[in-house]
Every structure is written in C-alpha cells, then in structure tokens.
C-alpha cells in the first residue's frame, strides 16, 4: 500500500499507469485522481519552497520557472533522506556542477555553495567568541607559541569565480552580468546572529587553514612571508579574526 501511495503522491516515473481507485475511494465531487493530486502538488511545492528559502539568490538568478524546473530535477535525483527540510539542499551545489538546464551558467554551483555555507553557518552552535583584547594582552614571547581555537560558525570556500558583482546585482535587483572567472577564497561567518561573507587573500586563507589545523601562530604567520610588510599583514589579519568573532573564547573568558 505505502509503495503504491508513494509512487502516486510523488508522481514517480510510471505512476501514470497506476489506477488510484484501486487504493483510494473518491466521491462525485472529488474523485480519487484529484484527491491524490492534492498530495502530489504539496509534495513538490513544500520542498521547492524550502530550497527557495535556503537559496534565495539562486532562485532570483534563475527566475521562478527555471528554478522550479531545476529544483524538481534535483529532488528527483536527490530525494530527501533527512528528517529536517534544512538538509534538503546539501547536495545542490554538486548537482549544479553537472546541471545544464535553462539558466545554467559557470558560476551557478558556486553561488549555491556560498548560499549553502551561509545557511549552515546560520545554524551552527551558539558559542562565545574571544574578546579582541586577548591578542593585545599576549606577551611577545608567548605569541609565536599560541594556538587558536575557532568558533564553529566559520567556513572558507575556494571559488573559481568572483561572486561579489553577481551577489551585489542580485541584492540590488540589477541585471546580473556574466560569470566572472577569478579564483577567490571567501570566508563565511556569523557575527552574533548575522551571517556575513567576504573575500580573503590567498595568504590569509592559507594562514587561516594553518591556524584552524592547530598550528602555533609562529607557523601561521609564515603564510604572509611573501609580503614586504609580512609582520604587519599577519597582525592585521589575526586581529581581524578576533574582531570578527572567529576565535573561540577560552573557558576563563566565559562568564
């Protein structure tokens, strides 16, 4: 029974050949076909709405009909396997890498990856960030040996396109330009409850990766060695990590 109902209510391929009256009773005003159709419409609309909530810029870029078509194709290929709708879009960026439907463009998967990172950062654990003063309070001797711990609400994406002009155009309701091929690292984080993202330089991304893997600041700072102002650049970057709330408070810093 559940197999048949599932086929009908999800409009699975081949379900057109199933007679719903075998399973369901109808009435003169609403026959079994119309009744199962209510479920079939709800099945697809609810999930597409959930995807639209998690990928608002992607939906805006594609437009209503192409977004619906893309989402329907995605949901057929990657049906939900998680109790929460908030996990529905997990595989959408990968899906879009191979997708070639109406509105497909080279930066679509990366736009989806950015929106997915923002959605996940939004719901990461609420923890207290370290106060920015901590960096200034470290003694010069202790600084190279210090290791930092990071808040969970931080992601770094390595993208092949500059998404800033596209994002800004979509924010402003302007006509988006063509994809802008330009390798770029983008940090995505949450400050209080606001989700933010911004490009970061390659050497800062490398320093950040070292710091997040547990390397001491002395090693982390070597990522800036190519710069003429290496020491200042390293201090600026690490200071900004504190200011933006990327560094986790130590137990003694938590009230």
């Amino acid at each position, binding site marked *: 029974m559940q197999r048949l109902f599932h086929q009908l209510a999800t409009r699975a391929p081949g379900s057109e050949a199933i007679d719903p009256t075998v399973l369901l009773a109808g009435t003169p005003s609403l026959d079994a076909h119309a009744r199962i159709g209510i479920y079939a419409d709800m*099945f697809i609309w609810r999930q597409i709405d959930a995807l639209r909530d998690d990928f608002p810029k992607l939906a805006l870029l594609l437009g209503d009909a192409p977004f619906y078509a893309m989402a329907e194709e995605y949901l057929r290929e990657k049906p939900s396997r998680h*109790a929460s709708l908030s996990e529905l879009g997990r595989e959408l960026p990968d899906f879009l890498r191979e997708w070639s439907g109406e509105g497909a463009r080279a930066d679509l998967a990366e736009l989806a990856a950015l929106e997915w990172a923002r959605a996940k950062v939004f719901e990461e654990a609420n923890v207290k960030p370290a106060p920015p003063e901590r960096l200034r309070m470290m003694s010069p001797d202790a600084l190279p040996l210090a290791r930092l711990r990071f808040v969970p609400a931080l992601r770094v994406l390595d993208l092949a396109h500059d998404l800033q002009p596209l994002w800004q155009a979509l924010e402003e309701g302007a006509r988006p330009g063509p994809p802008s091929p330009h390798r770029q690292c983008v940090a995505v984080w949450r400050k209080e409850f606001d989700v933010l993202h911004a490009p970061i330089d390659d050497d800062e991304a490398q320093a950040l990766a070292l710091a997040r893997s547990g390397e001491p600041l002395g090693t982390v700072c070597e990522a800036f060695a190519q710069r003429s102002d290496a020491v200042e650049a390293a201090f600026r970057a690490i200071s900004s990590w504190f200011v933006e709330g990327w560094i986790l408070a130590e137990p003694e810093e938590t009230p």
Partner: protein
Amino acid sequence: MSIARPYLGHGIGLRPRHIGRLLAERPPVEWMEAVSENYLAPGGRPVAALEKVRRDIPVALHGVSLSIGSTDPVDVPYLRALRALADRIQPAIVSDHLCWGRHGGRYVHDLWPLPLTEEALAHVVERVGEVQEALGRQILLENVSSYVAFRESTMAEWDFLGEVARRADCGILLDVNNIYVSARNHGFSAAEYIAGVPADRVAQFHLAGHSDKGAYLFDSHDAEVPEAVWNLYRAAVARFGPVPALIEWDDHIPDLEVLVGESRKAAAIEAEVQGLRAVGS
C-alpha cells in the same frame, strides 16, 4: 495506564517571524509550541529564541517527521536528536502526527494518512512503544487533515486514534481544525468524531484556519480560526474539559498581536464553556 495532562493554558506557535521580538521581550502568552525539526541544529538565532522562551514559559515540542505509521524502520538518529533536544529544553509536551511520511529511506516532508485497519493499528502501536522507550517519555499523536480515504479501511478515524492511544499508552493531540477539514472532505460527522475520542487521552488541542477550495477544504494554517472551528472547539471543551490549546499559523503569519488575540479568544471560549457547564450543573 494513563497519560499525564498538564494544564498549560493557551499558547501560540514559535515561528521565525517573531523571533526578534521574542528574544527581546517576554512572550505575551502562557506557553509556546516549537516545530521540533527546526531546532535540531546545534545553534543559531532560532535555537537561542527557543532557549530564551523556555526560560520564561513552558514549551511543547511538536514534530513533523516521526512518520509513526511508516513501514520503514524508525529513524534512530532522528530519535536520538529529538531526545537530546527534549533533554535540553525539558518540554511540557512532545508530540507528532498519526501519519506516515517516509518510504524507502526517503522523507516526503508531508503528513500522509494511514489506512484505518487492524494491521495498521498494530503496526503503529508497536512503533509508539519503541519511540516512547527511546524518548523516555509519553508522546501525543495528532489527527491529521486528510484528502483521501483508503478502500481497505475498516474503522472510523476516531476509533483508530482512540485505540492507538489506549493500546500504546500515549496521548492525543486533538486538532480541532483537522477534524473539521477531514469531516468536510470525507462526509463524516465532526460531532461524532469529538464524541468518539476517549476523553482521558486528550492532552492538547490545536486550532487553525483553513482554505475552502470548493470541492474540498485545505488545511492551510494561513488564516484566523473560522467560526465553524470555534464552534467545534466549544464542543471539544465541553467534552474534554480544559486542555492546553494552541493557535497554529504557518503561512502568511500575522503580527504577534493577532496570534495572541486568537489565543485569548480560545481562553475566553474555554471560560465561557466551563461557565455554561457550571450553570447547567
């Protein structure tokens, strides 16, 4: 065997639109209900709001993904996450729906009705036992709005619901709007439904609005509770007594004041019905 029936008064759903105000102000209602799946994430603004609301007033956790009637095995990781949330929030009530929504490991994110048969009844009863064991507490199951009836069904929905509650020793979350919607869609008597549900198992009411699609009523949760549903609520209060009642509003969510106004109306109707009973006794 019995079901705990704490009286919480009249509440509203905790919805994202009002989270800003709820973080800043004390909730202006006696209790709130949160959709469990929206709070399984480790943190974020909604979780902070739920924790803040819980510090001020009682909270119920209302799930949509338990899929108690599914032939799939119970989703153990989901139950573990729900248990962890419940342990942290200490809700007054944990509930979900008498339905199914998972097949072959795939979630449909909808509340599909069950055939009303002895076989389905036995299946649900067994699974409620498994769930209550995993959660370490009793749950309430809610009657869903439905648009289809199975040819193989052999009993009335209220008998099925009552038997599940009795045999599994769980409670009933009676959705008054769902009774009204399903009664219209299937041509049964809503009054007979209310009269047929075991009174000692009903531990919560839901009240909501619906849409009239002409050939059927759709459970849209996007409008004020209509007068016909308020009237049915009067009948429910007369039969079941004062039971925690909650206004559900999930689409085109209005200002907090409108929701609070609806919950106050529920309180006034409850008082009115209790007063009438006292006068008549």
